[in-house]
């Protein structure tokens, strides 16, 4: 397998709705920015991997077909990946494999979503229809007819975790303090959807209920319209491009993935509800390939669909023991980016978690959310000279898809 480097990244502004652009233009904007960042033209790109989660959002089956020409990928190989919330991660995994295998030298890995063109005629707002469209990811026989949503499915996992480990994620103040830190992070991200917002712990704990008893409005991720693009390159091309740009490559040091069974149950290969085993297995695999351990990592961009799930996931990724994830706050393990200069790295034992603002404050254009995370992680690793970072993705019912990527800052 060949070494794979990330040599360029670009994202659009994250907005709750873009009336000024369809997903065609959003993907073009991201491509333009990524190419500008890597100082390459599309003629230097061999192939493209698209992350687009949901045909219903895009209002078009095979949505990527309409993008091929306008993002400069005509007559090149292109493949679309769609794996729920983990779409971005799996697109990156496919793009990395494309380079590592020698099939391509330079790959555009691009993802995005246009979600809030959806409209609910009853409430005359977008959100219930967006929630319903995502709920269509659940089967029509057993789950969807019961009113399943992404929120209640993830909260089912969090409540099951809480059955097993009471006294951890059930403290609303701890969750609200994590929100405050993510808020500060989002304020620093020039493309963040909620970069101008200030949210206090008190406001979080007084915001309206979405799913009782663990999820209030200000504890959930957003719906974002936007796109993000990364340029993956072989070692040779990465070094060449880095010499051109003067920006070091960020190497993909290890990738791990795991999907749990759709159906929960007891024993066998059923999904265990009380943990996110897919996150744990994916991270263990990524660490093993990379030859690193969680303590070596200084920055994590993780898929924080909901803040309680962020806590569970941090346990699964091995940064805190399962059942003691509140130590992120209690022991000050989660660094407030306001306490650091923009070129300063966290002290050993402490972590930057979602300096982008994550999916809660930064942006969550589903098919490209993990590209968004990677854009931020690379940016922070370079600015702060952090040697190792971790990207995490999750998706599908009951958080059963998991992915992790270890990144290493090049010379």
């Amino acid at each position, binding site marked *: 397998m060949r070494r794979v480097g990330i040599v360029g990244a670009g994202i659009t502004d994250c907005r709750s709705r873009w*009336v*000024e652009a369809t997903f065609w233009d959003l993907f073009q904007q991201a491509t333009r920015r990524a190419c500008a960042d890597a100082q390459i033209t599309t003629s230097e790109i061999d192939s493209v991997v698209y992350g687009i989660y949901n045909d219903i959002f895009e209002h078009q089956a095979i949505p990527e077909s309409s993008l091929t020409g306008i993002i400069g990928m005509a007559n090149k190989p292109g493949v679309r990946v769609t794996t729920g919330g983990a779409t971005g991660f799996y697109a990156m995994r496919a793009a990395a494999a494309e380079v590592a295998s020698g099939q391509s030298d330079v790959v555009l890995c691009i993802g995005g979503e246009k979600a809030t063109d959806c409209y609910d005629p009853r409430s005359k707002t977008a959100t219930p229809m967006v*929630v319903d469209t995502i709920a269509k990811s659940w089967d029509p*026989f057993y789950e969807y007819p019961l*009113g399943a949503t992404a*929120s209640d499915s993830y909260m089912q996992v969090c409540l099951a975790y809480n*059955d097993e480990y009471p006294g951890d994620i059930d403290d609303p103040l701890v969750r609200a303090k994590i929100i405050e830190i993510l808020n500060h992070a989002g304020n620093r991200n020039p493309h963040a959807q909620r970069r101008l917002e200030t949210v206090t712990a008190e406001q979080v704990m007084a915001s309206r209920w979405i*799913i009782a008893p663990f999820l209030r409005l200000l504890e959930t991720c957003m719906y974002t319209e936007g796109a993000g693009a990364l340029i993956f390159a072989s070692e040779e091309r990465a070094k060449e491009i880095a010499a051109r740009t003067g920006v070091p490559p960020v190497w993909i040091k290890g990738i791990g993935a795991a999907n749990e069974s759709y159906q929960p149950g007891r024993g*066998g290969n059923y999904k265990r*509800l009380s943990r996110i085993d897919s996150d744990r297995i994916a991270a263990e695999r990524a660490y093993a390939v990379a030859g690193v351990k969680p303590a070596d990592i200084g920055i994590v961009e993780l898929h924080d669909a909901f803040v309680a799930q962020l806590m569970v996931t941090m346990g699964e990724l091995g940064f805190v023991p399962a059942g003691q994830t509140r130590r992120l706050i209690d022991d000050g393990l989660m660094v407030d980016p306001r306490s650091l200069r923009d070129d300063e790295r966290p002290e050993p034992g402490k972590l930057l978690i979602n300096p982008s603002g994550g999916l809660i404050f930064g942006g969550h254009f589903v098919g490209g959310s993990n590209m968004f995370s990677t854009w931020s992680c690379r940016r922070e690793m370079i600015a702060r000279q952090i040697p190792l970072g971790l990207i995490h993705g999750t998706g599908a019912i009951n958080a059963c898809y998991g992915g992790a990527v270890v990144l290493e800052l090049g010379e």
Partner: protein
Amino acid sequence: MTQHIENTVFPPDYDLEQEYSEVPGRDGQTYLQFASQMTTFYKQTYGEHSRFFLALREGRLIGARCPVCGNVAVPANTWHCPNCDFAEMHEVELPQRGVLAQTAPITIFPNSSFIGDAPFARGYVDVATDAPIAGFLPARLRTTTGLVRPGIFVKGLELKCVFEDVTVGRIRDIFWVPLREVPEHLRDKQPLRASELDFASPTPPAVAVTEAGRASLDQALSALQRLAADVGRSARAQKDLLGQQSVVGVKTSGGDFGLRVVDSHISVLATLPAEVDFTIVTEDPGVFTRWVHDGSLTDAAVEGTLWLPHKEAFQLLPILDRLPRSTRRDLRQD
């Protein structure tokens, strides 16, 4: 779901007028948007799931058991065991009792197909409890004790399967209630039908009147009187109440009172009215004081400190929750 007319797939009020409208961009330019839809109709086969749904129609619950590892697929959604090189599985009749596998989430903000249905609980029931390996059944969870609230559907709760009176072959043909809420003589009945249980008239929880409760209620009543007077002078608040009409009985540890909403006004009744639309109950009269000071009755109901008999009562709370803010905006700041 409840709002759908049962003999049509598409809800009739679920439509959008044909529209090509202008919408302003952030850049000051004008953009155009069009109303559309992406609907597909299905006559979808249940295929290999048919046996499970055919059994539901007959008032039976079935699983598929693997003769090699003993895995019981609940529901019977596959007939070849994925644990055992796809060994053929055999139909087994399942008990109509089970255990809640994990504490269940309660949906307050539903998707567009379930607007009006919240709050509702769904969870996973361990039905084949004797099997060494078993799937969990996705389950609709209901209580006969009023509105669903945290603390009822917790891990390990014993549940009884209840069949709707008319079963058609869908997962909503059944739901599960706490076994302790089922009268003893009905606990082994198979199938137990929904009409054999009483969901319409839940018994309100008993609250004892205490001295502390009385003092707290005095405070709440004067706050409520102030709010009622403010609503009388606030156009925003009156708009919030437009079209609402109900008489609500309130029982607290400080004593009882009533709230009447009519003609866009709200009034406080010193005693429990003889005729009420419904009665709500709370141990803590401070719930109302906090509401007047920008707290939330909805939250109190969601969190379980305010007891409600049914979902219809719940629909009034978000409207009432708007009043303190509306009066403040009209009377204090403007």
